[in-house]
């Protein structure tokens, strides 16, 4: 009846066929630079960046239940931090700082994680609406300050990144960045999977469901919030660093802009909040909408996205993944219990 079956309590990703599907998808993506134009490669790279943003935002918002509207800040700071160490001259830093792109991408992730580590204990004094709007304001402050720091970001002129990791004529810089992004995406997904499957994931879910109850059962909410926040920011930083070294140009006003938060959110909502596979579906659909919609509805693409977000959240809160899950996956046995652990519950 169904394409896929799942053991009660088990996860779809434990299924061999799902694993095989994942491997095939990665292999298929790996040949993209060889069979398409630069422009299309760039497009798919952007899609991978969306997956990373979605997966990481899903960790803090979907699993830990903390609606952060400041994700763009971590994306952007990852981008700038990595740019400073591949192109130190742009920020007037000594050339000696210069390190290879791969290392710089890690620096981007680490810097974002450190920022999260520092502000986490403060910003987590806020809950609910206040947390959402507080993170939005924090991201705005970071954007404004960075934009004003012309010495570090180039101000309105922006920051040009010098990087060339291409291999001669055959593999261009863009193609190498694509492979790097693909690798980073796989690692992000893999690590996140182990986080949410492990004890930390259970802790996050507990505070998401009922913080007070979890607290009274001895779960320390701050610990799990911080765990989710730092990990989420790390991956957002990596995504930003990769994007910076692909596009070779960043600008405080666009790289740190709310847009990236919006994109992360849309990817997750469309895919299915708090579900592991959601961001993949979401990123795919988003990319399709973002590029396909404009061909059909022209400049109205954003409005159509807005309408879709509203329709999804009202009528399909479990997202595309929920739809797939309902129609394509059946469980081998109908015992109740925790099996739907990975579907959003509110």
């Amino acid at each position: 009846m169904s394409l896929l079956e799942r053991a009660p309590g088990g996860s779809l990703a434990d299924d061999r066929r799902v694993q095989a599907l994942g491997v095939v998808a990665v292999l298929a993506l790996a040949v993209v630079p060889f069979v398409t134009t630069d422009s299309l490669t760039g497009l798919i790279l952007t899609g991978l960046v969306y997956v990373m943003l979605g997966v990481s935002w899903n960790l803090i918002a979907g699993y830990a239940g903390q609606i952060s509207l400041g994700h763009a800040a971590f994306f952007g700071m990852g981008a700038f931090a990595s740019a400073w160490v591949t192109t130190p001259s742009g920020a007037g830093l000594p050339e000696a700082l210069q390190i290879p792109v791969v290392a710089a991408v890690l620096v981007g992730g680490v810097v974002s994680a450190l920022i999260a580590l520092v502000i986490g204990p403060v910003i987590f004094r806020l809950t609910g609406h206040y947390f959402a709007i507080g993170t939005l304001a924090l991201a705005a402050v970071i954007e404004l300050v960075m934009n004003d720091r012309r010495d570090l970001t180039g101000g309105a002129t922006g920051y040009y990144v010098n990087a060339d990791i291409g291999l001669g004529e055959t593999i261009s810089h863009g193609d190498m960045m694509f492979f790097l992004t693909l690798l980073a995406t796989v690692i992000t997904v893999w690590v996140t999977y182990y986080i949410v499957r492990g004890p930390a994931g259970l802790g996050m879910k507990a505070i998401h469901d009922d913080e007070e109850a979890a607290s009274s059962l001895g779960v320390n909410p701050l610990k799990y919030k911080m765990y989710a926040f730092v990990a989420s920011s790390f991956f957002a930083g990596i995504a930003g660093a990769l994007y910076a070294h692909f596009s070779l140009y960043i600008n405080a006003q666009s790289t740190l802009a709310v847009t990236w938060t919006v994109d992360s959110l849309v990817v997750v909502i469309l895919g299915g909040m708090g579900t592991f596979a959601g961001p993949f579906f979401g990123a795919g659909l988003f990319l399709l909408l973002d590029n396909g919609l404009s061909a059909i509805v022209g400049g109205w693409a954003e409005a159509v996205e807005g309408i879709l977000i509203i329709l999804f959240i009202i009528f399909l809160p479990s997202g595309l993944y929920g739809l797939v899950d309902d129609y394509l996956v059946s469980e081998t046995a109908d015992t109740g219990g925790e099996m739907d652990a990975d579907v959003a519950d509110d």
Partner: protein
Amino acid sequence: MARDDTIRRRTYLKGAGAAGSVAITGLAGCTLGGDGGNGGDDGGDSGGDSGSDGTDSGTETTDSGDDTTPLTIAATVPETGAFSSLGQDLRRGYELGVERMNQNLDREVELIIRDDESDAQTLREQLQAIVSNNDVNMIWGSFSSLLVTAGSAFAENQNLPFIGIAFAYEEPHRNDNYEWTFAPFPKSRDVARSTLGTIELLPEEDRPTNIGIWEPNSGWGEEQANYWEDVLTEAGYDVVMREVFEIGSSDFSTLISQAQNADVEALLSNPTPGGGITAVNQMSDSGWAPDMLKFVRGADPSAWWSALGQAGAYALMCPGWVPGLTGNGNAQLRETFFDAYDTDAQYMPVNVGGSYNLTQVAEQAVSAAGSVEPEAVRDALRNTEFETVIGTFSFEDNGLPSEGELTAPTGQWWDGAQRLVFPDTDSERALDFRYPIPPWSER
């Protein structure tokens, strides 16, 4: 208010053959959207399938057996966003130029233009898309240092010759190892000298002495402010105010109070067009005006007059070309412009001249190179002396116009038109520098 750019960045046209792009080919008849029509932005509908229909053009007279590889040019213009008011002027200069190039060159010239939404990131994506899908051998810039540097960074990366105007910023030429970028345009140093020259048109006892500089938060903002401060201080003027502001900021009240407080007589800045218009409106609200106002880039577009009307009179600009310049094809430009576009205006918009000058450089370089090979064209750009509507000049290896060869013309808004006030020419389209700006109550 937090002026974050937010969703502005979002683009939807990353893919191939997207709507909104337009290709101009050698067909004289269809190039300008039909003769006599309003010639406005009606070009936007003929996207995608360019190139092929240019081959049956009857206008090519020669078929010398030499290299006739088509010249394919990728370009973006800002048709939406902060610089949208300039998009049409740039496009028209390019169109007139491409038509002329098709007549003069022994090869087909094709120009593929897209909207960059006044955003550097979008600009890059658009150029990437054009270059991926066409055999591009030259790139033309957009408007303002903010956007042109983005195009130039892309071209440097692709090893393609890049020509850009409305680009006064010098620092990237010197520090970013430019090899492919050429700016046939007066630079920051020339703008500062032109400002001094304009002031010195006045009898000595009438000249303003207190200079105020509003410096936008960009690399060029700083460079231009430095040149202004150095050149004017050296000439004996007092820079009594220099304050940084955020590009895109909409509240100038603090800057206005500060300028008033410092008794600023000549106010110099390089804001965006929208920012400049807002600033003048708020000066009017606060009942303060300087004696002399120069907004480089800010006062460039026709939108200045349509938004401000008489309140925009007296403003000076330094757009590279102003009606009143003569020689080097200026007469032909004027003639073809008024033939091609149905307009009530007596004077051409300034950026048409600037972008037309760009096309002259492109034509003369390709002609000198006898090829469209990127290296050959680059070398020709480095070694040729160019004669264009903005003057006669050559380039340094880093793409700066050789120092001292270009005089930056300063124009002034008067009765709805921008007209040349400096340098002095005998053209009837030039204007005597109107000074000082009367108080608001007397206007």
